[in-house]
């Protein structure tokens, strides 16, 4: 899914080339553009193949040509008519949305506390949270599984979501961003009679909106594309998330790539929407944060 962002970036980076060409061109510039062009192709290629494959018939999917012999929409019709796809789509939407909301709330709550309150052990707590960043997911999967098993969380939304409801990275990101909120704002609000929770929500949170938007994009995309954990924790086909579900298209002997690619193409749509919506916040937020006072 990150490829999707990169595609947008690449597109916006190659745009100004027309203007640049009007000026005298030097070698450095040509090299730069060539490099960017190569990078752009590298990032766009998988997506182009995804879409191209989704328009092919099964017999030509191992043909590397980017242009299908006879493009058709049968795959899309098949996937959309297959009832399972909707279920997985809804599962993914629910899981990614709840996880994103949870991260926005709890990461920023903890980040704010670590940043703006002085209490004994604060530094140790911070270091402890940070150090969890160094443990790879692959190592955590087994403990999570055992935990879910003994608590009866297997094959449930909660089971899929619980490891990601709060992240160390998000907490760290929010703590760093709250550093940019001057204490005066918080003290002024305290004098104005807000309690600490209100200060966090009505004063501090709006001031870090760009960070919240970035966090929302990260978390949403991360959960939308998560594969290993949902694959392990779910058993029934109805509980699958989209990536897990798509990978199950076809049987062991015959992977139906054209259907997987079709599903993947459709599944990029929500991520595009999320990105476009929150990107606007990021830009607005940056404009706002650039002002003094």
């Amino acid at each position, binding site marked *: 899914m990150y490829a999707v962002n990169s595609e947008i970036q690449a597109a916006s980076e190659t745009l100004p080339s027309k203007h640049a060409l009007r000026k005298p061109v030097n070698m450095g510039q040509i090299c730069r553009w060539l490099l960017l062009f190569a990078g752009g192709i590298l990032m766009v290629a998988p997506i182009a193949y995804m879409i191209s494959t989704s328009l092919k018939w099964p017999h030509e999917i191992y043909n590397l040509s980017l242009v299908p012999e006879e493009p058709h929409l049968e795959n899309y019709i098949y996937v959309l008519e297959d009832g399972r796809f909707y279920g997985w789509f809804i599962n993914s939407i629910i899981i990614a949305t709840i996880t994103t909301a949870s991260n926005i709330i709890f990461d920023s709550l903890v980040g704010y506390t670590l940043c703006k309150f002085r209490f004994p052990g604060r530094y140790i707590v911070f270091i402890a949270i940070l150090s969890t960043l160094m443990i790879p997911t692959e190592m955590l999967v087994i403990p999570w599984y055992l935990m879910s098993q003994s608590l009866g969380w297997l094959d449930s939304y909660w089971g899929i979501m619980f490891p990601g409801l709060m992240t160390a990275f998000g907490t760290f990101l929010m703590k760093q961003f709250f550093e940019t909120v001057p204490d005066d*704002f918080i003290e*002024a609000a305290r004098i104005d*009679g807000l309690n600490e929770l209100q200060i966090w929500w009505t004063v501090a949170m709006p001031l870090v909106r760009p960070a919240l938007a970035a966090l929302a994009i990260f978390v949403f995309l991360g959960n939308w594309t998560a594969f290993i954990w949902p694959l392990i924790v779910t058993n029934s086909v109805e509980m699958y998330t989209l990536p897990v579900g798509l990978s199950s298209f076809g049987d062991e002997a015959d992977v139906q790539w054209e259907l997987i690619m079709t599903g993947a193409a459709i599944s990029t749509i929500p991520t595009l929407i999320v990105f476009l919506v929150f990107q606007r916040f990021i830009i607005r937020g940056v404009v706002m944060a650039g002002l003094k*006072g």
Partner: protein
Amino acid sequence: MASLVLRNLVKSFGNTEVLHGISLAVDDGEFVVFVGPSGCGKSTTLRLIAGLEETTSGEIEIAGRVVNHLEPKNRNIAMVFQNYAIYPHMTVRKNIGFGLRTSKLSKTERRARLEEVAEILDMTDLLGRKPSQLSGGQRQRVAIGRAMVRDPAVFLFDEPLSNLDAQLRAQMRLEIKKLHQRVGNTIIFVTHDQVEAMTMADRIVIMKDGHIQQVGTPSEVYHRPASTFVAQFIGAPSMNMLAGEAVENAIHLKSGAKINLDLGLKNGLPVIVGVRPDDLHPGGGASILEGTVTVQEPLGPETLVYVDTVNGEVIAKADGRVPPQVGDHVALSADPDCIHVFDAESQEVLTRPL
């Protein structure tokens, strides 16, 4: 009636004591300015009054009530911060209205109050704007407005003008003073700018290293400074300090000059003689110092001359039309009434000119 009383206020951060017993009574409606060099504890004092920091010991009384253990919002104070602290994501109306959150007024009363404040601050047209669409002075006025709507017993200002340029600062200074005359609330105003202190205050509190050095009207602290510190801090350019010695009924300066002042001082007591540049002129009667002009600073009606003397460099004021030139040898004289004498050891004043 006293609207604010500080009794022996002490504040420590960890093991460092930064305020060493501040005592002060402020009358209702008084405009008191805290002034002092950076790090002397002005902000800390203000934050203690506001309740943003806990006192280590001592008592704070606001409007007849000891408030040491009250939350900031219950202390009946309002504070204006140096960088305004107006919320960038709210309109001016919301920002000002924020100050009324805890009030028990009805919705219509709130509205009326808000509009009244906007009217006083001349901001009625700006109520719908966001802070980003305001100038620095207007933002500062929003911050003042947010404090004003609460109609607090005491207003606290922490260097509210230091982010503004010189011209705007002068203008806001006047506006705040007018505002005070109009609304009449008690104001505690912190600054490190002695001009601000002199022009706005009913009373000035001069602080240094966590101690109050002197409390008095602008005229008192200017004309009758209690210590060399106050004498040099107030007034620009600062007072000339000349080392000397008490001898019988006079003071002998290093320059050899004798100043006849009958202070009844002990013979041989080391003293410091203070003369403001405004009171020290080239020529005139009995000279107390002489030296060579090293720099000349024309101010228009007058010219400042820097004179190199055996007592070190001193600044004197000359007539702007015929000032001495650089390199000229000049004799400087001062009216004995304008001479301050301080104890060289304690740095405290021995006599105050009338």
